[in-house]
């Protein structure tokens, strides 16, 4: 008996230990650093709010936060615009179970390919001598290659949308699949057209999936620092890149930590907000 109990407590304690060791302790360390003081050559322990004050006073930080939020919203919206019709098509239009599985896997499969590689590929597609430019010049639409496709915010949104689409398709697909078919049939029987059914029945019932997907895409983009590095241009720096630079080039871990805490609060706020929306939109189907 006691052995059973010991084993059970080990099983229960594991996630707790994991959360403490890999989440709370690191966050606590970052939080502590954020009150320290930068002092050549490194930094010294202190308790002061100078780092947070600097984030408020120097316009570069809210500029970069706004830019990051803008890109994250654009990514979430474009991923939704592509993923929703796709998931809808899979759930309601594809009749063959095998075809549905194949198409679903086609979206999920890229997750097994390195993020870096997938971001890198977009360079060869969007570049001045890339696939799109070569094609446009070949069919005669352009005289000379254009540089509007790569190294700007457009290419970042395209790349990140592509990378995070699986995270949007998965929850929406699940939400759509859970909708009882008899509700849709009832809607039809009552004389509501296909669009009416979509907007009045299917869309509201799939909102939890939409919110989950939007939250994934937004938060993952908000913390991304690879896309700006690979396909971003001179105006592509996002908040994670600034944190990297404070930890590295500036050797100012306190300021970097303060910025990381601000970022964490924003992300947690978004998650909380989406959780509330999801709850309020939940309809009891039982």
């Amino acid at each position: 008996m006691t052995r059973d109990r010991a084993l059970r407590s080990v099983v229960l304690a594991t996630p707790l230990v994991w959360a403490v060791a890999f989440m709370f302790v690191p966050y606590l360390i970052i939080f502590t650093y954020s009150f320290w003081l930068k002092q050549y050559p490194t930094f010294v322990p202190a308790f002061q709010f100078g780092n947070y004050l600097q984030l408020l006073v120097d316009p570069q930080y809210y500029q970069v936060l706004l830019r990051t939020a803008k890109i994250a919203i654009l990514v979430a919206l474009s991923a939704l615009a592509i993923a929703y019709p796709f998931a809808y098509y899979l759930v309601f239009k594809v009749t063959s179970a095998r075809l549905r599985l194949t198409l679903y896997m086609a979206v999920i499969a890229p997750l097994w390919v390195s993020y870096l590689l997938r971001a890198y590929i977009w360079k060869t597609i969007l570049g001045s001598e890339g696939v799109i430019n070569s094609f446009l010049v070949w069919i005669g639409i352009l005289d000379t290659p254009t540089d509007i496709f790569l190294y700007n915010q457009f290419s970042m949104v395209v790349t990140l949308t592509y990378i995070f689409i699986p995270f949007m398709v998965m929850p929406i697909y699940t939400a759509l699949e859970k909708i009882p078919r008899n509700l849709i049939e009832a809607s039809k029987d009552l004389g509501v057209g296909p669009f009416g059914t979509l907007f009045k029945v299917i869309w509201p019932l799939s909102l939890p999936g939409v919110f989950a997907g939007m939250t994934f895409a937004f938060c993952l983009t908000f913390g991304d620092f690879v896309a700006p590095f690979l396909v971003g241009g001179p105006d592509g720096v996002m908040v994670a890149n600034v944190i990297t630079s404070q930890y590295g080039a500036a050797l100012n871990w306190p300021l970097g930590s303060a910025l990381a805490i601000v970022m964490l609060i924003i992300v947690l706020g978004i998650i909380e907000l989406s959780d509330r929306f999801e709850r309020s939109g939940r309809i009891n189907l039982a």
Partner: protein
Amino acid sequence: MTFNNLYRSTTAMALALSCVATPALAEGEVNILTWEGYADQSFVAQFEQESGCKVTATYVGSNDDFAPKLAAGGGVYDLITPSIDTTKTMIAAGFVEPIDTSKITEWNNIYEKFRTAEGINHDGEVYGVPYAWGAIAFMYRVDKFPEAPTSIADLWDEKVKGKVSLWDDKSAIYVAARLNGDNDIYNLNDEQIERAKQKLIEQKPLVRKYWATAGELVDLYAAGEVWISNTWAGYQSSLIMEKGIEVKEFIPKENAEGWMDSWMVVKDTPNLDCAYKFLNMQSDQAGQCGVANVNGYSAANPVAAKKCMTPEQYDALHQDDPDYLNSLLLWENLEARLEAYTNAWNAVKSAN
């Protein structure tokens, strides 16, 4: 499986693992944190054989990587190779220990300018063995410029809109400051830094991409994205030429910065014997011609370099040209001002 069994098998596994984790007993080892090419197999393999010291190299992408890696805890690296703008921070932070120059056979053959450089001397002690040096030159694609560029101003020219690249580094501030006529680039006041910042923001519409790694700049030229930029002289240009694109380096009339890397010994290293053997190899012919051949950089020991270089290579690397070396604005540690420079550069990148 009973609990007892589980306990026994985990103990056995832990024992097995601890055996694997015990380091193999070689004659000695030296672990270095350095730039790619500085521990190239072409010359390190022979050293390992002769000295019995196993060399393990970890590579950094920028000078900013040394401090965070050492600040995160010691005992991993024995030798590091920061540039002359970073060496002083390593000394001040207590990451490195003094070097016994009497144990470095070639010490007196190294350029005096480097041996006595402020960045590696502190309180009468020497903390670094100068290794390689070069210029942060500028570079352009020969086929795109009918008239060869001669000035930093050529990177602010509307004619090259969308084809300019600059190193994603605080050195961008140095470049813009010189264009503004502020030549004391390592001692800029706030007003001068602000002017440099505005100059760089003004240039942003012309910039295709700020390059972050050596390989990235090579790719940018190879993909036809960039026609003019700054560069680590000797290194990227030869890689680009290999891809069949003709580029030419130049020192602008506003002058260029110079850099120099030194070997430093991490404090309390247990592998001191192997470390000194390694330093002696690196400051003599094997290491000096090794780095020149692999990276295209100039050697810090011209006496050793002369013995193993062809006269053409010796000449091309400016080894016999003190005027060239003296004309370069050798990097300096910015100390407490570093923050002002890096913040200004971040502000440039954050500006809309």
